[in-house]
């Protein structure tokens, strides 16, 4: 009798274990559309209403337990959340400062984008004529007003800024190089942000001298890049887009009250072949801004001295 009971018990156990393993193997091996899956789905279909009813009936119980659980959980988290709140407040203060800086940068970015090269329409032209005299450092290009070229349009090449348009004809224009005495560029040291007026260096053709408006005291190193500042210093200036490379610092003069910097142009001004004129489409933001800035800018010293502002403006700023 005892042996029979033991055998029956073991047989039942073995049967159930084997059945479980068969179910497991079959279920795991079959496709989602298989028979066991179908049985499972059918079972779920059958019990779903029952389960739904049970869920609704037991909802108050669940809510009660949930309320207790939530209360205990909330109490246990209270002190931790207070610490987190304090930390987040500190972080918020810091972030607000960052946000302010960010907004300022966004404004700056919009200004920058208004003056960037992307807002100009570059026209590629070929240099057809070069002045042989060192007194007139300019070149003539084969595109003129018929192509949209206007006076004061910046001119660049692959290296950087080379000058601006000073005379325009229908199918040609005169470009004054940055080493020409008629051209002044408001520039800045890219590394330090110091702004100054870049002019041809007297006595050294092909070299530039940058007079800094106000020295920030930051050291300027040899090799620092000089770029356009995106501003103008007088009414007749061209509003060069900001950030166009001009040259590199070769030396710094600190003998005088104003720091001056010797700059070597990046572009090979003696060997120009193909250049680009950054034209402004009439009515474009860049054209409007350029015109507005030119009209608001203070008069140049030449104008103040009565050197004929009309002529100055007519020759260099009329097309702004």
């Amino acid at each position, binding site marked *: *009798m*005892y042996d029979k*009971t033991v055998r*029956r*018990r073991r047989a*039942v*156990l073995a049967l*159930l*274990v084997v*059945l*479980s*393993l*068969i*179910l*497991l*193997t*079959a*279920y*795991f091996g079959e496709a989602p559309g298989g028979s*066991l899956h179908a*049985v*499972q789905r059918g*079972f*779920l279909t059958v*019990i779903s209403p*029952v*389960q739904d009813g*049970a*869920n609704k009936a*037991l909802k108050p*119980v*669940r809510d009660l*337990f*949930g309320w207790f*659980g939530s209360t205990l959980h909330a109490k246990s988290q209270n002190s931790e959340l207070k610490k987190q709140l304090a930390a987040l407040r500190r972080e918020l203060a810091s972030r607000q400062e960052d946000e302010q800086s960010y907004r300022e940068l966004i404004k700056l970015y919009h200004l920058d984008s208004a003056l960037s090269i992307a807002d100009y329409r570059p026209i590629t032209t070929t240099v057809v004529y070069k002045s042989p005299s060192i007194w007139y450092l300019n070149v003539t290009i084969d595109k003129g007003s018929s192509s949209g070229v206007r006076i004061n349009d910046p001119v660049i090449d692959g290296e950087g800024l080379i000058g601006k348009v000073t005379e325009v004809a229908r199918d040609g224009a005169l470009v004054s190089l940055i080493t020409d005495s008629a051209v002044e560029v408001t520039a800045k040291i890219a590394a330090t942000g110091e702004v100054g007026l870049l002019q041809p260096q007297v006595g050294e053709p092909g070299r530039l001298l940058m007079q800094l408006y106000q020295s920030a005291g930051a050291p300027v190193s040899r090799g620092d890049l000089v770029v356009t500042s995106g501003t103008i210093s007088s009414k007749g200036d061209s509003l060069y887009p900001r950030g166009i490379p001009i040259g590199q610092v070769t030396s710094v003069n600190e003998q005088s009250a104003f720091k001056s910097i010797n700059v070597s142009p990046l572009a090979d001004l003696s060997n120009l072949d193909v250049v680009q004129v950054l034209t402004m489409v009439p009515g474009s933001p860049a054209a409007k801004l350029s015109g507005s800035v030119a009209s608001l800018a203070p008069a140049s010293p030449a104008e103040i001295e009565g050197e004929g502002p009309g002529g100055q403006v007519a020759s260099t700023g009329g097309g702004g």
Partner: protein
Amino acid sequence: MSTTLRGSPRAGAGPVASAWLPGSLLWRVAVLSVIVVFVQIGVVSDVPVFGVSIDLSPLLVAFTGLLCGSMLGAVAGFGIGLLVDLALMQTLGVTSLIFTLIGYGSGRLRELRDPQAALTPLLLGAAAAAGAMVGYSVIEFLLGVDAPISFELLREIVVGTLVDTAVALPMWVLVRRCLIGGLPDDPRRRRRRTYTTGGLSPLSHSRGRLR
């Protein structure tokens, strides 16, 4: 023995062990299993305690085995496991296999050791919960479920075992109350019930007869 499992029928080679799955007991186990599984799915699973859910089903299987013996424990474990797998759309056979072994083991514990300590349900509940979670993890890993062995899994097993242990005693009381009416009478339990329900002891009877 001062602390005993009151109402637990003494087994060994007792009536339950020798009986072939009494029908009334089977019905009670079946109804209780369905109710517990629905309560588990509908209520208990939605109430996390310390980040884990209480699992009543391994406790039910273990206590069924402890009360009814290894054979009914194994059968109940298989059925409850199958019900859980079907209802939760899990891999069929996994929970059945684990619960079958838990039910059988609990029944064998009763048949071989006949533990009478009051803490037995607590310890058995903890062992059943831990065994179920470890077994489930092992089978899932063997089946190739992509889950890394991490501290989180260990924490889940430990905390889950502790939480299930905390509800083991109330669950034991419930299961015993539901099933004890279907269990064959045990001489010791019948004798104890006589004492605790106002009945007179043989001594008082004899005194009455003497008068």
